[in-house]
């Protein structure tokens, strides 16, 4: 797949599809390629920081810097793999794995208190004081059975983020009865639709 050509062959599409474990259809991959070429204005084969920041919707997102670090310098194949967690065909595990990778900035497979604090800081900015952030995080960690020094692994994230492990008692205490049915089925919502011509 040459960097300079803007045409995808059938082989290229199948290679990319295999690489992302079939989470995108062939049509979606073609659309993503058009988008990739549109963003990669200087045609060097990957999207630079400048080019990402020309998308205002991306630039105003609080987590844009972190996401950018993950997608910096990726070629098209890796770009599709990166986005595969957002496909409707992606499994819950793939989505949780993605969220875990966003938290685990040093990539050692364990999420520390500070790493969680970093994300919370990105999301809340100057609207909560640093002390308060630490207090909130410590409080919810302890309530979930962890301590400030706990190191969370992907399995912990999986347990916490799969909503189906909600206990009935928790549900009854916090929400009206009619919503129990909805909550019981709610899954992690992380899907993006690729526009197909």
């Amino acid at each position: 797949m040459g960097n300079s050509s803007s045409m995808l062959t059938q082989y290229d599409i199948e290679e990319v599809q295999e690489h992302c474990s079939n989470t995108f259809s062939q049509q979606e991959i073609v659309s993503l390629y058009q988008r990739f070429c549109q963003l990669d204005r200087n045609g060097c084969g990957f999207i630079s920081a400048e080019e990402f920041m020309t998308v205002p919707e991306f630039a105003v997102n609080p987590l844009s810097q972190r996401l950018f670090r993950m997608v910096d310098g990726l070629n098209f194949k890796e770009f599709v793999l990166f986005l595969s967690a957002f496909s409707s065909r992606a499994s819950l595990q793939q989505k949780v794995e993605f969220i875990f990778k966003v938290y685990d900035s040093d990539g050692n497979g364990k999420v520390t208190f500070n790493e969680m604090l970093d994300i919370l800081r990105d999301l809340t900015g100057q609207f909560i004081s640093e002390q308060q952030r630490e207090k909130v995080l410590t409080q919810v960690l302890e309530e979930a059975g962890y301590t400030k020094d706990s190191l969370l692994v992907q399995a912990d994230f999986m347990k916490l983020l799969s909503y189906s492990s909600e206990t009935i008692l928790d549900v009854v205490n916090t929400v009206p009865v009619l919503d129990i049915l909805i909550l019981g089925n709610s899954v992690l919502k992380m899907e993006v639709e690729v526009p197909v011509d």
Partner: protein
Amino acid sequence: MSKLNTSSSELDLDRPNIEDYLPSGSIQEPHGTLRLRDLLDISPTLTEAAGAIVDDSFTRCFKSNPPEPWNWNIYLFPLWCLGVVVRYGLLFPLRVLVLTIGWIIFLSCYFPVHFLLKGHDKLRKKLERGLVELICSFFVASWTGVVKYHGPRPSIRPKQIFVANHTSMIDFVVLEQMTAFAVIMQKHPGWVGLLQSTILESLGCIWFNRSESKDREIVARKLREHVHGADNNPLLVFPEGTCVNNHYTVMFKKGAFELGCTVCPIAIKYNKIFVDAFWNSRKQSFTTHLLQLMTSWAVVCDVWYLEPQNLKPGETPIEFAERVRDIISVRAGLKKVPWDGYLKYSRPSPKHRERKQQSFAESVLRRLEEIN
């Protein structure tokens, strides 16, 4: 107990709420006690970011959509080739000839009028207006322009300003052909700049420089002076501030709407079957753009002069601008997007990110209070 630090950056409360336009991630309002899961679940924010990577409404505004080639089979292809020969070999030289004749006539009349009638200002202005309208007609003829004007023609009255949607610099020529407007424009380099500083100057045009921040106040003052002068040519403004691809409109700048005068909207829509008139200034220079137009079959467009609008009591200038944008977009069949056209040249202000951060912070603290 828990106090929110107020934002130190100035909050533009007048701005229309962009959150209403952007797709919302989780519509469910989180309630109940705050859990670790709620803090760890960053999926709404991630989904918004990924959504922006995959497709965003801002980039769509500036995408030039190339027309579908129709010459794909054995009998259409020779027809298309014949078309190319006619366009480049016959029409183009004819058009260049027409334009050259037009320029000769214009220049030979303009300089005498400009210099010899220095004392008779009223007559000179009238003749100069007529001459500019003439050269614009020649330009339009050089693209075989078919322009249909709808609505009452603009009149020369004080305290009124004309606003239109912007697709290319030829918008100005198309409108100028009918009425000699004074326009507010970005100063360009090259031969366009030369034209701007000599001929357009006499119409009373105002120049601005996008990159200078102080510029805005100076321009606002010049606008106000021009509009209130009884003798000046009617002023035309393109409030989008940049060329958009004639399928969308970006947000209007409020400068033209806070002068305390009547705003007359003009809607322009080009018919893409003949040529795509969008000037993608990132992709081509104006000369290339003109040459492309001169080697196409025709430039077909509709111009609607719409009902003049005034600021309603209790309406802010920004709301007024949005209302007029709505009128123009509906008339020309364009979709509205909530972005500022200048984001083409600069980053969005941190205000938007801060607003998101603020709402998340507030919801976290609120749910914390429910525990305590």
